[in-house]
């Protein structure tokens, strides 16, 4: 498809008005800007990776803090990754809530996306509206609403309220992703399976689900990434169950230990690899 779309541009038309040598260097203006822009976006990431190898001066008895200047190269922090029990617990909390809420949101969101892609039913417009609202509502409003709800119920905030809330904000994103995939699916394949004697459940698991898989996988990864990245809703619904981003936010007041940058580097590299694999899988499947 992209081959067709790019074709017309490759036919270079002679410019109606001849331009002097001025065009020569302006041609490079935009590409240079794009590269500078990409470097600007990646700059903090490069700083995080670089500073995860930075020595800290002094403070050996107390916990070390990253200095804002470069002191010297060390790989110490990678060896002492799990030195801070609070931070390790926060990472574990984030991963647990991330995986569980992404699984729940994928299960619920896939079914919802399928219903929206395939059926016209009463209440569909309402469902669409709630999905749209839950995606576009500002995080702080959603966080305050969830916290109000838990306060009104008298529920103490912790792991379970985090799980419920993270699942909530991921459902809509999974539903939209799966719906896009399901809309492009040929329904006659499922009908053919049923003509060949498969009951609807078998047809769903043997035909529909494998065809939907790239959409479902993308939805799951998106939900997991949203959960890992989330700060605002976590802060409002976590109670004493500290997550990785909220732990880091709390640490900004006293100074960031280098372990944070090490964890960030590892998470970044894992996420980037997963995204590349996912892109290759979905290209392969389609």
């Amino acid at each position, binding site marked *: 498809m992209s081959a067709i779309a790019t074709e017309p541009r490759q036919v270079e038309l002679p410019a109606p008005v001849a331009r002097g040598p001025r065009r020569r260097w302006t041609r490079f203006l935009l590409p240079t800007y794009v590269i500078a822009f990409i470097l600007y976006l990646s700059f903090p*990431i490069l*700083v995080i990776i670089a500073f995860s190898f930075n020595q800290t001066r002094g403070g050996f008895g107390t916990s070390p803090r990253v200095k804002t200047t470069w002191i010297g190269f060390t790989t110490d922090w990678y060896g002492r990754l799990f030195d801070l029990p609070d931070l390790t617990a926060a990472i574990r909390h984030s991963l647990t809530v991330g995986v569980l809420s992404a699984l729940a949101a994928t299960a619920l969101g896939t079914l*919802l996306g399928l219903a929206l892609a395939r059926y016209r039913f009463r209440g569909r417009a309402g469902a669409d509206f709630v999905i749209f609202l839950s995606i576009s509502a500002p995080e702080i409003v959603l966080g305050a*609403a969830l916290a109000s709800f838990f306060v009104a119920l008298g529920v103490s905030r912790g792991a379970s309220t985090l799980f419920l809330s993270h699942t909530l904000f991921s459902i809509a994103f999974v539903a939209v992703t799966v719906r896009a995939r399901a809309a492009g699916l040929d329904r006659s394949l499922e009908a053919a399976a049923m003509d060949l004697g498969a009951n609807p459940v078998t047809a769903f698991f043997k035909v529909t689900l494998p065809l939907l898989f790239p959409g479902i996988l993308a939805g799951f990864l998106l939900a997991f990434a949203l959960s890992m990245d989330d700060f605002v809703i976590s802060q409002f619904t976590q109670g004493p169950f500290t997550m990785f981003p909220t732990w880091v936010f709390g640490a900004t007041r006293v100074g960031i230990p280098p372990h944070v940058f090490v964890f960030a580097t590892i998470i970044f590299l894992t996420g980037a690899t997963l*995204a590349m694999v996912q892109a290759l899988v979905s290209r392969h499947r389609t």
Partner: protein
Amino acid sequence: MERHLQPDLPDVEVPERRKKRARAPYGLAAPALVWLFVLFVIPMIAMVSLSLQTGNSLEGFRQTFRFANYTDALSQNGDIILRSLRNAAIVTGVALLLAYPVAYWIAFYGGKFKNVFLFLLLLPFFISFVIRTVAWSFILSDNGIIFGTLKTLGVLPDSYRVLGTTFAVIAGITYNLLPFTILPLYVSLEQIDRRLVEAAKDLYASKRKAFTNVVLPLSMPGIFAAVLLTSIPAIGDYVNASVLGGPGTTMIGNVIQSEFLRDRNYPEATALAIVLMGIMLVGAIIYARLLGTERITEA
């Protein structure tokens, strides 16, 4: 009509089957919709209810339908709300100007590397935005890698600082929201039929004219979506103001967060959150009207 063609089809089967099909979407959608209802719709109602209560965190809150909570919250935080709106407006404008050329170049000249460029643009966002913001506080710190170096070289005076200023806050929010600006712009620019641009050039439009009269109007749905997706999170942000800002750069999100989580003044915090939501809804509706409704359906 079907029945005339197949007269021997038993009458009962048709409605039975239809009933089964009609139930299918509800079975599929119900679990997610129940979740959304219980944890999104009801909490919104709970928040509205909480915003009208009186009391304090020690003795508990009672429902008194005190609408003055809203006027109190507004009169105490008027300047902070205005500052948040101004910051969000600057962020949105700057992000649009920064992102448009990038989206344009990738959509029109990216060729087969389009997806690679998009991937590179989104790569930084695999690290939580809190940590990226912390990284900016390192970069911009008074004696950090940029300003520390410039100060030792004597380019900048020792008293020069960026961290703690409004500039740092606005720059931080802009940085964090750029993907929300660039993606909708890219999607709408990518969909533009290239032949229209060539037709304009064939009709002796200059490059600039072809851009302002063809490409720019056709990318309006993308600009519309980009403005909404950038400005809405920008107004409510409080992480950048906390990490990169100083005492005078507080935004409305900071007030809601500290009133709710630190002072447990739930009525004021929720009243402010609802005011924030209201401002955004009204802004989005006015904005949609100004641009014309057909633009939104396109977007």
